[in-house]
């Protein structure tokens, strides 16, 4: 029963945060809040990317992951910031590095 409570609680909290600004139509905030909203997506996606590449299991691991990151950056340059160029080259570098260094 307590597991059901946890599952329901996580669902409610997650939905509440997602619907926070969508529940009622309102004007987009301006000023500094507006600027924060402009840059937050970049900050968020980079944080998620780095977190997954540096600490995929929650704590830092500096192994084949960094080669994956390097491959991703090179992919971004070579394929002109294509999402799939970054992903494909990064994955290739990661799996090759892991095969070589373990």
């Amino acid at each position, binding site marked *: 029963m307590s597991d059901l409570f946890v599952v329901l609680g996580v669902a409610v909290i997650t939905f509440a945060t997602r619907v926070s600004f969508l529940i009622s139509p309102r004007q987009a905030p301006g000023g500094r809040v507006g600027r924060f909203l402009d840059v937050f997506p970049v900050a968020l996606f980079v944080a998620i*990317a780095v977190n997954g590449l540096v600490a995929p299991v929650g704590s830092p691991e500096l192994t084949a992951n960094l080669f994956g990151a390097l491959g991703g950056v090179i992919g971004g340059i070579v394929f002109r910031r294509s999402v799939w160029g970054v*992903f494909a080259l990064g994955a290739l570098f990661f799996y090759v590095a892991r095969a070589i260094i373990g």
Partner: protein
Amino acid sequence: MFGGPSFRRGLRDSALIAVAVFLFGLAYGVVAVDAGLSPTLTMLSSFITMSGAAQFAMAGLLVAGPIPVLIAATGLGLRHLPMSARLAEMIGPQPLGTRLRLAFVLVDESFGLTLRAADRGVDDLVAYKSAADLTLYLGWLLGTAGGVWFGSAIDPEAAGIGVLFGLLFLGLAAPMVRSRRDWIVAAISVVATVVATRILPVAWQVTVAATIAAVIGVFIDE
């Protein structure tokens, strides 16, 4: 809306990301059952939450009891606040049912795709995001089901799923980094995240790092 050009584009753009989401769902199904969550509750959590981060945190903290899990979910959910605000700004006035539906699958992947679609001038962002939400949601559910029922044959760490997801978001971030301010914010986010992985619990690392970088970005001119 459904079946129109923007909807079809959303299906197309999200298809491969849905494969990655499926793999992540597989990993979640394995991890959740391994952590002691029943197959039924594991599937229920994916049906009603649709949040990899929160669900993985839940599986990881289940033994600690409900309070740590709910605190972690709150910390992870805070990043949805600016996403919700930004999405509301992009879609403009919409019926309540539409806004609630789009909010339900407000995940990092569909948000990133929708931002990119807005930049590229896609006409109907509601249709676009609806299509992306549909494919990602199905991918997540099917992945979770696969993990629950075939979990013993899968090793998510061996498959490098965490790294693949990192690369996916690196790819989503790449086209968004355009101005001088974007580059500075991205660099600060890198540093803040590396530091956060060393000193903060998992549930807070991304949210705190991203918030710090974005707050500093407020004071930087483009």
